[in-house]
């Protein structure tokens, strides 16, 4: 299998090996089972594979941590997707495809807590005590853009941040919007998305790309596949299937 671009360039001939996290979270991958194609990233992965000439049965899944994804040795995947933000620093050691999803940051609080009444303005939010999952884009966003007055706290993963807000150790959490919606709806008791940051003005666009080994020969093929998926509306369709609409989450006023 494979089209003229990808054939012969994959890890295993005639098969495409795709990596995601362990575990993989909804709404990106449902039930930690990417093989089902359910969940935004699982669906995108199969769509990209399809365009590259690999039908679903030619796709293998592996699991990697972030660390394994960026380690300097030979990779055990063709591409890896687990909400990797495309950042210039990262490009030094790995390659990214063009973005397959662009999102923004959002603030999650507990409904009924003191913080849930905060005005959706930058100046009001700065007074809250923030937490975030380390290693996501939330940390640089907090540190460089929002700059809250109190020191932020960082955690290993979403589950830990949720526990921390449950223990009232933090007032608010910053996630990418889809994760925020999911966490608020499912993981956090009485969670609520307080607001999302504006996408425009280059304040917080978070572009997710497929991660590949440095100098991967597959990059042009992957880029072409994503381009065509975007062009014919497939990506938008997948998004509307798996990601809840961000309606109802007010946009935070950064000027106040």
């Amino acid at each position: 299998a494979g089209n003229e671009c990808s054939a012969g360039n994959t890890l295993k001939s005639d098969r495409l090996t795709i990596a995601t996290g362990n575990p993989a979270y909804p709404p990106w991958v449902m039930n930690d089972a990417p093989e089902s194609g359910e969940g935004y990233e699982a669906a995108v992965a199969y769509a990209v594979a399809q365009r590259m000439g690999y039908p679903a049965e030619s796709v293998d899944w592996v699991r990697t941590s972030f660390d394994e994804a960026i380690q300097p040795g030979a990779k055990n995947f063709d591409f890896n997707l687990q909400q990797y933000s495309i950042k210039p620093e990262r490009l030094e050691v790995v390659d990214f495809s063009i973005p397959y999803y662009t999102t923004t940051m959002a603030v999650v609080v507990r409904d009924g807590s003191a913080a849930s009444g905060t005005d959706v303005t930058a100046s009001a939010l700065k007074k809250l005590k923030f937490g975030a999952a380390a290693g996501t884009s939330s940390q640089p966003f907090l540190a460089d853009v929002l700059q809250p007055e109190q020191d932020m706290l960082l955690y290993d993963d979403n589950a830990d941040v949720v526990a921390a807000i449950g223990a009232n150790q933090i007032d608010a959490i910053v996630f990418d919007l889809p994760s925020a919606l999911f966490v608020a709806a499912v993981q956090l008791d009485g969670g609520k998305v307080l607001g999302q940051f504006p996408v425009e003005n280059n304040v917080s666009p978070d572009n997710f790309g497929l991660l590949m080994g440095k100098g991967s020969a597959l990059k042009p093929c992957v880029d072409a596949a994503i381009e065509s998926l975007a062009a014919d509306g497939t990506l938008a369709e997948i998004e509307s299937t798996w990601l809840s609409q961000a309606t109802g989450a007010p946009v935070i006023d950064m000027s106040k």
Partner: protein
Amino acid sequence: MSLTARQRFERRERLRGIAIGTTSLVLVVAAIYWLVPLAPGWEAVQRSFFNWPILVKTFPKLLDAFLVDVMIFAWSLPLILVLSLAIALCRNTRNPALLPLRVFGAFYTDIFRGIPTILLVYLIGFGIPGLGLSRPWNSPYIWGTVALVLTYSAYVAEVLRSGIESVHSSQSAAARSLGLSEADSMRYVILPQAIRRQVPAMMNFVIALQKDVALLSFVGPIELLRQANVFKSLMANFTPYVGAAIIFLCVTVPATRYADYLLARQRAVRS
């Protein structure tokens, strides 16, 4: 047989102790049992940490993952013992010609105790395979184990060294005076005594190692704690860690009790 005054007194004391102990234990347990659930957040905490359905669901997979720990532990421990022994012996040489070995030993323990294990695991687990090794020689099991062994042997070497130093020099004089070589007197005379003295300290490290096998998970292998971590992330619930703790305790507690028992028996028999 009738008891002497002292025996009666001691029995009374012991009974009193047991009575006080039991009472206070019961009080504390009762306090925890009745008071903690009154805390406003108890239900949430219980749901997060002591969630029976989640425990039942995850436990079998945790047990599976524990096999990985057992495996890594089983091959790391002998390597650690051998390497730490070598380092301890290096640090213990007295021969002026062997100064470099002493320096090397001091360096080794300083560096490998001082470097955060996680860096070592990354550096060796990712770095060395990254130099261009191909499968199976780039296995994270191999290089992760190497990192673990390097770290632990530095700690254990210090324990062994102080054991060796604590065996009185007259023992080594006696051994060498019989014409035994340095190696033989170390092997047959000094080490058996040194190791015996350091059993409690070594047990500390055996237990810690059992848990630090988890460090290998940074470079891939999914062992018990990593599996618990995956479940935690997935279910946003810490109960799987409680499951992991149960498994660990089932192994380490009998092991330490047994080691203590052996030591006590040895002390009773000898001297």
